[in-house]
């Protein structure tokens, strides 16, 4: 990077950082929890960090602990990971425009498009004097580092946090709640927010906590496509 590029990157970094603070809190706590859990199952930081850095898919990594402690079933791991992560299919559709023309960094942005990063990049726009490409890169990069770093801490130190962190991971729920409000404030978006809540609640009640994602996504897709004409008016 030449010096003007480096400058643009640093300015984007300082503009992006405040948006990621809730993720910092949530990912450190959950990352540490993940590192500790892996350690308890006999997997040292080299493995937990490798998983976090390569797979980078929070909730699925917790599911994968079970896979790592039973028998070797790579195909099952792949299918399960696809199903648990299926909601990501919808994130890309919303980012086609925003990530347009980002060239070499685009694969990294797509690779690391997790729930938390999506919630931020789909809700906030970069300040006018900040290069959008670097702004989005910094949000993705920071969130990614928090997760990997949290995992490393948990794997190295175990559970050594001196205060009671129970409930600190609620920061991520709070992040989604706040960004939900930010989203539904715009125009008629409240209808769409309501559709998301209703479809998810219905799937949760009918299919239970462990199987709610796929039915919810299907319901959302059907509702949006069937109601498109009405919703657009």
């Amino acid at each position: 990077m030449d010096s003007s590029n480096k400058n643009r990157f640093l300015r984007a970094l300082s503009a992006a950082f405040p948006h990621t603070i809730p993720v910092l809190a949530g990912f450190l706590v959950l990352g540490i929890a993940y590192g500790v859990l892996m350690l308890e199952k006999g997997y040292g930081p080299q493995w937990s960090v490798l998983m976090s850095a390569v797979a980078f898919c929070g909730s699925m990594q917790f599911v994968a602990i079970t896979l790592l402690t039973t028998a070797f079933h790579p195909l099952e791991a792949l299918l399960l990971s696809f199903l648990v992560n299926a909601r990501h299919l919808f994130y890309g559709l919303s980012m086609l425009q925003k990530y347009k023309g980002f060239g070499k960094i685009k694969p990294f942005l797509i690779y690391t498009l997790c729930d938390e990063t999506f919630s931020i990049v789909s809700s906030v726009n970069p300040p006018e004097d900040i290069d959008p490409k670097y702004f989005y890169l910094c949000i993705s990069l920071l969130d990614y580092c928090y997760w990997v770093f949290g995992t490393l801490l948990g794997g190295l130190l175990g559970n050594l946090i001196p205060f009671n962190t129970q409930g600190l991971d609620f920061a991520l729920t709070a992040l989604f709640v706040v960004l939900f409000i930010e989203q539904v404030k715009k125009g008629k978006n409240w209808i769409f927010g309501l559709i998301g809540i209703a479809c998810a609640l219905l799937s949760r009640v009918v299919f239970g906590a462990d199987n709610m994602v796929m039915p919810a996504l299907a319901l959302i897709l059907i509702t949006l496509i069937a109601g498109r004409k009405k919703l657009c008016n």
Partner: protein
Amino acid sequence: MQLTPVEIIFTILAVALGAIATRFPPFVLFPEGKQPPQIVSFLGSVLPPVMMGLLVVYCLKSVSIQASPHGLPELISIAFIALIHIWRKNVLLSIGCGTALYMFLIQKVFGV
């Protein structure tokens, strides 16, 4: 630890591949040079609020209404976050106060 190092690496790669298979398809199916079909543009424009609603419910999926404390800490904290956010419009303030309240509630008020 029951798997061999090679098996662990393949399991990690399998999990990663599953995640990649959910993140890349939209960008591969609708590349930059081509105008995506109207339905795709429509979905892309309305999905952020829809998915934010889904994520909120998803975060709360393991909360039980029947068992004590009946989802009260979550309900109170979310209502508080909504109020403070509509009032002050400050993302970090809302999340910080909401999380602090939730921690206080489950550790001190509803804790065992």
